[in-house]
């Protein structure tokens, strides 16, 4: 009798363990250097490592789906992915986890010979032609300066802005997160240098699908909060 009970208990535990292990989580990832880098069909970068470490104790079967820029939100809305990272477009009315992952700072990219290191010296912008992506929120320090702002249209505005700076058609380009350009793995690094409007940071989040189960959302959100309290991603990246 006792051994039958033990067997029954074992079966129940096994069954429930199986259920808990069968939970899946589809995470869409968009390239965001230097935090997330796509290379040789692989995702790498410290943000990828951090998220893996944070979520692994939850025992989800995690599927990583690499997505081109602009596709992420679409797939999230369709429910083809549960989470999307990173996500920084707060205008799109998408739910996110509560804790921002990090805070990119907007800035200006220059050809190295024209580099202005301190952007609070706004008088130095006088008569500079600065390219800005159409619709991008511009920091007041630039908006109120005497720079000539040239709007650059199109989905590829950022890459075009960088290219125009490189060939000298504009004096500088306003980038919402110049760290994505100004890093040593980028070819443009050899010609460009960027400086930052410190004090005007944005927030980068993990976006959540409207179809994600509330319970899963709570579990993941709580886990990320806990992890951030122990060590923020920014410090993990820096240390």
């Amino acid at each position, binding site marked *: 009798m006792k051994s039958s009970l033990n067997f029954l208990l074992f079966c129940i535990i096994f069954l429930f363990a199986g259920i808990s292990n069968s939970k899946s989580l589809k995470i869409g990832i968009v390239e965001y250097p230097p935090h997330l880098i796509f290379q040789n069909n692989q995702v790498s970068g410290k943000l990828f490592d951090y998220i893996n470490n944070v979520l692994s104790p939850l025992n989800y079967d995690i599927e990583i789906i690499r997505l081109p820029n602009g596709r992420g939100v679409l797939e999230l809305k369709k429910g083809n992915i549960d989470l999307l990272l990173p996500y920084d477009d707060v205008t799109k009315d998408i739910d996110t986890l509560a804790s921002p992952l990090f805070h990119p*700072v907007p800035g200006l990219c220059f050809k*190295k010979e024209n*580099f202005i290191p*301190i952007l609070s010296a706004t008088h130095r912008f006088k008569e500079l032609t600065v390219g800005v992506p159409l619709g991008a929120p511009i920091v007041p320090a630039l908006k109120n300066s005497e720079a000539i702002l040239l709007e650059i249209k199109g989905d590829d505005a950022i890459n075009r802005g960088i290219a125009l700076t490189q060939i000298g058609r504009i004096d500088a380009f306003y980038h919402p997160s110049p*760290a994505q350009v100004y890093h040593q793995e980028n070819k443009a690094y050899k010609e460009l240098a960027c*400086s930052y409007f410190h004090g005007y940071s944005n927030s980068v989040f993990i976006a959540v699908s409207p179809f994600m189960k509330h319970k899963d959302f709570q579990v993941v959100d709580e886990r990320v909060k806990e992890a951030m309290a122990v060590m923020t991603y920014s*410090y993990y990246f820096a*240390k």
Partner: protein
Amino acid sequence: MVSSCMHIVIKSIVVAVFLLFSFLSTLSYGQGDKNQHILNDITKMYMASMTLIFKSQPLINQRGGDKTVLFGEDFIDNIKMTYRSKYGDEFPELSHFLKKMLLQAMVEVMEDNRVLFNDDEIGFKGIIPAIFAAQLSAKLSTKGVGLKIKFTRTKDDIRNVLNLPDEWEEMVMKKVINKPAVYFDNNGMLDGNPAYRQFTPLPMVANCLKCHGSMEDNPLNFGKDKSQWTNIDMTGFEMENWTINDFGGGVSLSIEKSVLE
């Protein structure tokens, strides 16, 4: 006999109440004292980091070379060393999370500048103590931990609008400008919440004058004929003609009470 007993009981109660109040007031003073101690530690850690950034200028601006001491644990070790030599005291115990948070934010700021520091094609990187302090303040404000720290000065002389003094700082500076002393306020406000606030005035020193002094203090003019001198400092700002006797501004630190209590 009964009245004598009553008298003794009443006397005992009065003494007990008196002792209790004395004890409670000691406790409350002790707590305030402890909080001020945390504010002092944080201010000194902040100032030690600015001193380290000043001392590191040749390394920061040099083209090439190993700059690992500017990052991560190495940087923290150097802040601790600078603190010990600046104040002749041990580096504070990291007993409160705000102190840990401050050190982490310093490391994060240095990491944000890593690419620039290692860019061999750029000489002057622009990460002078005041800029480092501004970056650190901005970084801390993203943390949402109820800690605000700012290197500020009187309103008319501020170069970076983000460092403009608020009303409290204006009021304090008026008090301490001619009689420099640390000003502590345990009834301040921060973002609408009760806060401890402290202002630590800084003396003007020769290094400040390299940017804020007059043309003869400007290192860009060293060795040049007077006719070629410029009143634009190395950061691109017009120099203010301050002298060593002028007010040096100060470090304004605010911590929400709920964080400490």
